[in-house]
C-alpha cells in the first residue's frame, strides 16, 4: 500500500516537472533555450557560443547570443521558432542579439546584427503579431521590418 502511494507521488512529481518544462516558452534573457534550428549548411560554417566554437550541422540548435560565421565557401539557412527564415552567403558574420517568441505572454522580439556578408531574411510570425518588434542591425544602419522579405549585403572593413 505504502509502496503504491510512493509510486504515485513520484509519478506525479515527474509529470509536474514534464509539464513545467513543456510549458516554459522561449525565455528572453538567459540565452539557454534554442531559438532557431539549422536547416541547410554547405561548406564551412561555425557557431560561436559562450566562447566556444561549434561546427554547424543540419539540425543544430541556435541560441540567443550565438554568432554564426560562414567560411569562404560556406553558406547556411536557419529557421527561427516563429518561422522567420534567415540564410547567409559566404564570408558572413551575424549575431542573434535578441529573440523572444512567447505568444502566451504576448512577448515578441527579434533583433539580428550583421557585421559583414550577405543574407536573405523572410519574416515570420513575430512580424505578423507585433510589427514593431523586428529589427536587423548593421554597424551603420538599423532596419525596421514590417512583415516582409529582403536581402542585405554588409561590407566589412
Amino acid at each position: 500500500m505504502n509502496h503504491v502511494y510512493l509510486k504515485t507521488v513520484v509519478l506525479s512529481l515527474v509529470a509536474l516537472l514534464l509539464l513545467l518544462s513543456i510549458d516554459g516558452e522561449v525565455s528572453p534573457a538567459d540565452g539557454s533555450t534554442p531559438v532557431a534550428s539549422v536547416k541547410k549548411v554547405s561548406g564551412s560554417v561555425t557557431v560561436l557560443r559562450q566562447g566556444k566554437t561549434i561546427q554547424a550541422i543540419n539540425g543544430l540548435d541556435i541560441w540567443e547570443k550565438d554568432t554564426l560565421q560562414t567560411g569562404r565557401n560556406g553558406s547556411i539557412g536557419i529557421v527561427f521558432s516563429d518561422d522567420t527564415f534567415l540564410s547567409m552567403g559566404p564570408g558572413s558574420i551575424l549575431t542573434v542579439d535578441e529573440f523572444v517568441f512567447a505568444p502566451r505572454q504576448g512577448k515578441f522580439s527579434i533583433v539580428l546584427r550583421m557585421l559583414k556578408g550577405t543574407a536573405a531574411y523572410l519574416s515570420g510570425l513575430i512580424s505578423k503579431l507585433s510589427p514593431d518588434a523586428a529589427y536587423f542591425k548593421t554597424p551603420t544602419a538599423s532596419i525596421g521590418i514590417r512583415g516582409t522579405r529582403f536581402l542585405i549585403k554588409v561590407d566589412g572593413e
Partner: protein
Amino acid sequence: MKKWSIFILGSIFFCLMTGCATQQPKRDLIVLLPDPDGKVGTITVTTDGGSQVINKPGYSTEVENLNKTPTSPRQLNENEIKDIFASALSAQPDLSNRFLLFILFFENDSTKLTRESKDIFSEALKNIKTRNSNEVYVVGHTDLVGTESYNKELSSKRASYIRNLFVSSGIKPGTLFVSYYGKSRPLVSTEDETPEPRNRRVEVIIR
C-alpha cells in the same frame, strides 16, 4: 618642432575619431523582395543621418556611412540581385512547412462576416484540422473610422467571435491565441476616418 608634434598628434587623434579618411567607406545594400505569397511589406532603413522607407519589390537602398541618410530607392534588376545574393538565396530553407494565413473580412462596424469570408472561414477550419495544428493565432482589426478605444473594442469582439466559431466547430480552445489591435494596423494604409472594407478583418494564422 613642437608645433609639428602637436599637428601629428592632432592628426592621429582626428583619424581615430573619424575612423580615418583613407579607410574604405562601409556600405550596406538592402533590397526588398515580395513575400512568397506575393504580398509586399515595408522596410525602414535608419542611420544617424536619417531614414529611408522601401515598399516596392526589387527596390534597394544603400548606406554609405553612419551619418548619411540612406540613398533614395533604386530598382535592381534580377541579374544584379543574383550576382550579389545567389548563394544567400540558395541557402534558404524549404518554405513548404511555413504557417498559413487566412484573412476574414467583416461588414461595416459589426462582427458579421462578409459572404465570401464565410467560405474562407471553412477553408481555414479545414486546414487547422488537416494540419492537426495546435497553434492558431486569431488577430482582430478595424478600419480607421472612429476612436481608438472604440475600434480596439470592435477588433476584440471580431477576434473573439472567430475564436468562438472555431471552438464551436471542434477546435480545442488551448490551440487558439487571440489578439487585437483596433485601428492601429491597417492592411491598406488610409487617412484617418476613411471607411475601408479591406481593413475590417480578422487574420487567422495556422501553424
